[in-house]
């Protein structure tokens, strides 16, 4: 029974991937991609990787899907309905390359040594010293903290990249166009109901991350989507990017991470070495700062470069 379910899911995944790749209109392709992402999240649940599933659903499918929808909306006017096919030789070369990559991946997966090389036992054995109960959070925040730190730096760089698309006279202004939404409409009603719920869920996902699947990234993304809902329904306008508090929120996560890392260099064994007695509170502090940074960055990445001046014109 479980095999039938898994096989059916794998087939659906392949079909959706094919649909997203071959769809003519970019809108349909994005719709296929979002559905694909949600199904991938379910596949991760089947593989007992709930943390990955949460992140995939929130970021891979939800946030990236929304970004791609925005891009598709911009491209729609210029999109040509006829696709120019590349020459036969190039198609053959592409097919050959894809087949080689697929064969290589299959070979790597099929010829894994038994048992597969793993650090899971060491990670599980070291987990008590971090004070965390969720091994995924332990890996992200302690054992491979450097990766997580650099991930957050990449977020800031992405934000700089988006903002640098701003026209000179709009620098410091409000991101995105003013949304036209009826303040008494259906969406505004929905937003009023859902935003409080979503904020609680987002903070809950962040908070349980210490001992259960969840964490700063997934929780912060849920909070970001609630903020975006408020922006879309004009319950809250996007803040001007010149605002100091906003800039601070953007960097507080990686900055605190960096400070802790340097303190580890000064007092302990090396970069990001937490003193064992304070490991849990330090990790918690970093997670709080990172949730804030992730929420603000994700929302502003979607809001786009500033298109209006600070007074909203």
């Amino acid at each position, binding site marked *: 029974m479980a095999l039938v379910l898994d096989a059916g899911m794998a087939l659906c995944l392949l079909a959706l991937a094919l649909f997203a790749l071959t769809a003519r209109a970019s809108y349909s392709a994005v719709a296929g991609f979002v559905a694909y992402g949600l199904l991938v999240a379910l596949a991760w649940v089947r593989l007992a990787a709930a943390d990955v599933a949460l992140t995939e659903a929130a970021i891979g499918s939800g946030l990236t899907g929304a970004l791609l929808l925005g891009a598709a909306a911009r491209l729609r006017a210029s999109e040509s309905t006829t696709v120019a096919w590349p020459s036969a030789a190039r198609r053959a070369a592409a097919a050959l390359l894809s087949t080689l990559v697929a064969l290589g991946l299959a070979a790597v997966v099929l010829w894994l040594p038994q048992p597969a090389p793993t650090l899971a036992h060491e990670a599980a054995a070291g987990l008590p010293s971090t004070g965390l109960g969720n091994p995924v959070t332990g890996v992200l925040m302690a054992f491979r903290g450097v990766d997580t730190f650099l991930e957050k730096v990449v977020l800031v760089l992405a934000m700089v990249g988006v903002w640098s698309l701003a026209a000179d006279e709009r620098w410091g202004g409000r991101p995105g166009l003013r949304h036209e939404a009826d303040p008494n409409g*259906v*969406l505004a*009603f*929905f937003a009023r*109901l*859902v935003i409080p*719920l979503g904020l609680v869920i987002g903070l809950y996902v962040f908070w349980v991350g210490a001992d259960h699947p969840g964490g700063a990234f997934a929780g912060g993304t849920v909070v970001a989507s609630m903020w975006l809902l408020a922006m879309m329904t004009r319950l809250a306008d996007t803040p001007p990017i010149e605002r100091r508090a906003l800039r601070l929120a953007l960097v507080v996560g990686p900055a605190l991470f960096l400070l802790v890392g340097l303190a580890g260099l000064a007092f302990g064994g090396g970069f990001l070495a937490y003193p064992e007695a304070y490991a849990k509170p330090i990790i918690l502090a970093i997670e709080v700062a990172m949730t804030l940074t992730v929420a603000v960055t994700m929302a502003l990445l979607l809001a786009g470069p500033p298109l209006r001046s600070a007074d909203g014109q």
Partner: protein
Amino acid sequence: MRGLLDLWTYAAVCAGLFFFIAGTVGILRLPDTLTRLHALTKADNLGVGLVVLGLLPQTADALAALKLVAIWAMVLLSSATVSQLIGRAARAEEPPR
């Protein structure tokens, strides 16, 4: 008692699946956006509702049952909102014949 509850689960989940299948057929076969929305929301509201009702006796404790009902409520809320929005957009684009 256990057997009766299991029977209820089978019956309700199967009924929910029926609404999902009917909704999917409707999305594929019905002629325009508004009627397709009708099929979609039936699948969401009744399909998920019946599946949740069927699963309620299988939950370990009251909290898990409450979570299932909360999921149903969220699906109801979001599907009602989204179908309203899509319906309005569709009416603006394709006037009723």
